[in-house]
């Protein structure tokens, strides 16, 4: 078989896989595996993305200055603290 046809066949196969992605995603969304019933009633306020510091475990509940709260010269020393930013105050409390 010509090399060009081989390439076109390979590209067609990759393209088919690529076009299957949104279909697979839609299928997975309609049939979610995640069963949250046991934790739904806990009314959680945060996702568990990191567990090394309280302000990255519960960023929505943490204060703006939480990373520096331990003592005046305590600089950020948790790696996830540089990836998960503290909550931005969006509403002025009167």
């Amino acid at each position: 078989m010509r090399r060009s046809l081989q390439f076109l066949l390979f590209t067609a196969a990759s393209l088919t896989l690529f076009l299957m992605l949104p279909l697979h995603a839609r299928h997975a969304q309609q049939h979610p595996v995640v069963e949250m019933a046991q934790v739904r009633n806990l009314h959680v306020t945060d996702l568990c993305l990191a567990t090394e510091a309280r302000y990255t475990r519960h960023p929505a509940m943490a204060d703006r200055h939480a990373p520096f709260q331990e003592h005046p010269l305590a600089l950020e020393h948790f790696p996830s603290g540089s990836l998960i930013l503290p909550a931005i105050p969006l509403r002025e409390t009167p």
Partner: protein
Amino acid sequence: MKRTVERHLNILEFTLASLLRRRAKNLSLVAIYLLVVFLLASLQFFVSALKREATLILHDAPDMVVQRLMAGRQDLVPAAYLTEISQISGVTAVRPRLWGYYYDQLNGANYTLMASEDPPVTSGHASIGSGVAKARNLAVGDLLPLIRYDNTPLMLEIGAVLPSSSDLVAVDMIIISPEDFRMLFNFPADQATDLAVTVRNPKELSTVAAKIASQFPDSRPILKSEIQRTYQSLFDWRGGMTLILLATSLISFIIFAWDKATGLSAEERKEIGILKSIGWETSDVLLLKFWEGVVVSLTAFLLGTVLAYGHVFFLSAPLFAQALKGWSVIYPRFQLVPVVNAYHLSILFFLTVVPYTTATVLPCWRAATIDPDAAMRY
């Protein structure tokens, strides 16, 4: 029509032969390109899926959480606050929440301890997240000893291990009864960690929050919309995690495309000169280079995107999980529900394939329009 197809096939044949002549160089080119697409696509898939999970999970968050601040730190909320807040018009329910952290000296892990009344947990029992079960090697029926405030053990029998599908919420969680919670930390009976407030009309939330803040100046009401926006901004492209990865990928891609756009190698110029001298037209040379760009970029784009999908949704994004893990002893396995749509894929395509193909064709157009003799002597 048949002739046009034949012409394209012939030029593609020549392109592939030409690329294979410089096999090592071109394979490394595809590998780097694939890596950049893989990283960008993984990031986009990861962030979109987390945004979706956040929206779904935080849908069940309380309408408002009221904290109390003292000397710049969160402090316990007295029962008197609960009574007065529940009398504010529009407030339908105020529920004291008891939660906190427990540092396990055995393995250095931090657990989130939460007292639950609904569903009720029997005193002396606990439901634990899959991460806690793994870290302490526990199963249903085992005993989990926690050290109380006075250094005496509190033995809890494991009633349930939460499924790993709930890791994104509860991997580090120990759910116990309010009595055990108070006993463990010597938590005052008439105080709570914070208050979960339910308001009848969502439009009145900010008014109720303003009333609470004016009635209790040391309180900090946090609305559900603020919690949701915290997560939306966390996964926004300006968020810490996204920005670092996006900037790294884009800068490497710009360097990569810039290298292609700034010129051709002497060998490539010579090849163009020879092709022109044996009768190839400028349009044929441009078509050759166009196909070269398509072969490299389309292969890298399609494979990079498919691999990124597998990385994020089948392998639980080990690359990003490592970055988020930091020094955590317990961390979730990101079993995310895939989120991909045509918009995401077309953004990825225009960010990667279009600039690269343009960057390949432009210098070739300059080389293809010069005299073949000059090109060969270059």
